[in-house]
């Protein structure tokens, strides 16, 4: 690079650092903003050293080959399953892990639509909500046994998925995204305002716990149920991914026109993808509602859809293992940061930005890349 350009970029960066501290001035006052400036300047001048530090960090990852690391996920998760019962019982830890597993199902389900088929879906939480509310309403208002209720709720969710997909799939790219987003918002407003059915913003409580031979009222029992369901779901999704359907999805994602020319019924496979994805949202909704015993519209906002989308992308778009890792990371980071409540979301936002900038292909994709370059050189 030429010298003059280099010095130019340095100047611009310095200017940006100054700008940041000026911009936060009205919000945090003179003193804090001056402190921030000092911190930023230190970072700025030590940047080159930090870069060395981070690249050595990245290199330390490079020893792991992808298949070994796939195995590692299986090993780690099995260990967790085995350890939980003999560990000193912690309601909190069990709840967090159960929640993680529910989100694993959601992330893998959304990954089918966004990652494999390439349809940007911004209203996934709406289907999660439909699953949860269907289960809540059916189990509170009717006496149908658990399994039947669960199946019925999932069928309802998939059916609504199909109904929305018909018109929505005529649209492409970002237009599809905005329509799914609109659908999510409409559903949230309806949940908030249809007092007689959904009890509005107060939500529905008193949802019975699952009952299959025994009652799953205990948090630990619920955890096992979720774990089993989660493993089966991931297994099924992985199988479908490798089937003819999965290959058709990938083809559509790469190039729709080519897919058409190859004789793939694009509309049909998109519909399948959409419905298949909605199916998992319904399942996760049932698990969530039966675990919490309570649902309210607050749990299914646009931010929720975005959170699930972030899991998929952070892990590595289109990769089921990536979605699993993403779900764990994005549920665990806020939980770890629980003690600094006020800062929590601030850091979550920052982490998201840093993750996509430094690991643009997601965690799995980036590890693959490092190995790729290593094996070549």
């Amino acid at each position, binding site marked *: 690079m030429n010298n003059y350009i280099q010095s130019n970029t340095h100047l611009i960066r310095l200017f*940006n650092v100054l*700008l*940041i501290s*000026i*911009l*936060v001035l*009205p*919000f*945090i006052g003179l003193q804090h903003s001056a402190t921030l400036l000092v911190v930023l300047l230190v970072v700025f001048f030590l940047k080159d050293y930090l870069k060395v530090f981070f690249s050595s960090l990245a290199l330390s990852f490079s020893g792991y080959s992808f298949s070994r690391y796939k195995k590692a996920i299986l090993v780690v998760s099995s260990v967790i399953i085995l350890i939980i019962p003999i560990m000193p019982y912690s309601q909190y830890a069990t709840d967090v892990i159960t929640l993680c597993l529910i989100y694993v199902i959601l992330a893998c389900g959304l990954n089918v639509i*966004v990652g494999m088929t390439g349809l*940007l879906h911004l209203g996934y939480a709406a289907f999660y909500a439909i699953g949860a509310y269907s289960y809540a309403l059916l189990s509170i208002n009717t006496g149908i046994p658990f399994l039947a209720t669960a199946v019925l709720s999932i069928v309802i969710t998939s059916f609504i998925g199909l109904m929305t997909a018909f*018109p929505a799939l*005529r*649209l*492409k790219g*970002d*237009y599809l*995204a*905005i*329509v799914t*987003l*609109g*659908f999510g*918002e*409409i559903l949230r*407003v*309806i949940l*908030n*305002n249809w007092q007689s059915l959904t009890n509005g913003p107060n939500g529905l409580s008193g949802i019975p716990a699952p009952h299959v031979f025994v009652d799953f009222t205990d948090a630990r029992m619920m955890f096992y149920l979720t774990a089993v369901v989660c493993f089966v779901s991931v297994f099924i999704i992985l199988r479908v991914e490798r089937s003819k359907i999965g290959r058709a999805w990938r083809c559509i994602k790469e190039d*729709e*026109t080519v897919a058409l020319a190859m004789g793939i019924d694009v509309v049909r496979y998109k519909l399948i993808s959409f419905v298949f994805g909605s199916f998992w949202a319904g399942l996760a909704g049932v698990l969530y509602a039966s675990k919490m015993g309570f649902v309210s519209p607050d749990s299914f906002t*646009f931010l929720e859809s*975005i959170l699930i*989308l*972030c899991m998929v*992308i*952070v892990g590595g*778009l289109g990769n089921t293992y990536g979605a699993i890792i993403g779900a764990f990371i994005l549920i665990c980071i806020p939980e770890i940061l629980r003690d600094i409540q*006020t*800062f*929590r*979301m*601030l850091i*979550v*936002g*920052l*982490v*998201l*930005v840093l*993750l*996509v*900038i430094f690991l*643009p*292909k997601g965690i799995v994709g980036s590890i693959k890349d490092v190995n790729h370059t290593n094996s070549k050189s």
Partner: protein
Amino acid sequence: MFIQQIINGLTLGSVYSLIALGYTMVYGILEFINFAHGEIYMIGAYLGIIFLTFFTAVGLTTSNIYLSLFLTMILTIAFCCAYGYLIERVGYRPLRYAPRLSPLISAIGISIFLQNFVMFTQGATDKVIRVEALDGFVSVWGINLSYLQVAILTVSFVVMIGLNLFVNKTKIGTAMRATAQDKIMASLVGIDINMIISLVFVVGAGLASVAGVMVAGYYGLVNYHIGYIAGLKAFTAAVLGGIGSIQGAMIGGLILGIVETLGSAYVSSDYKDVYAFLILIVVLLIKPTGLLGQRIEDKI
């Protein structure tokens, strides 16, 4: 009071239009949804209140209210433009050649960050402001127009005309359109694309901040999550008008404002947030590219 409602709708709509312009311009050039844009509007509203409080504290408001309002506006716009510039620089530029969804996630991260930054520093409760000098209204043919409504309508109108002239008649504006059509060719004729992209973010942020300040005065209160819902609706407005089209964003915003106001007045205000999205879905299903959008054929 049908006409009164229309006026209220236009007021709301022009705010949506101002925000929507930022979405549409960024989309036109980078083809991505700048989810952090709504936060600029929110920050604009907060900065307006912070600066005005500051001017009150130093006594400028009592001696010359109009000067302090003017200064508040100018300072807010300047700060928000800088925010827009920095967001692009820090959050999006490193991702210029990344996969399509990466900048989207980055934008979401920035949006979460800014919301919580403001909540953390300014508190989670509503911030209230009252400018007594702007409390009157004028009556024309039995329709009541508050001073602030007049101000919002006038300022939006002037700003939008100005933007149209800028984009269509100036050299830099033409360069912006050229960049939106073909980035590589634009750089081959000597246009500094990075400069143009920065400019688009700066202009968009400036427009959103104008909307933010005026809304802060109009409703008299702000909180840290107003940016989210306003941003969502403004984006809807941009898509409604045909994303990438500047006139489309203006028209889309106005339609959305009117529909929302009439819907809440004559149907039910509980479903206020639904009308926008219903209209959007209906329009997209009939004309998938929005009202003024150009059909972009796939290259085969």
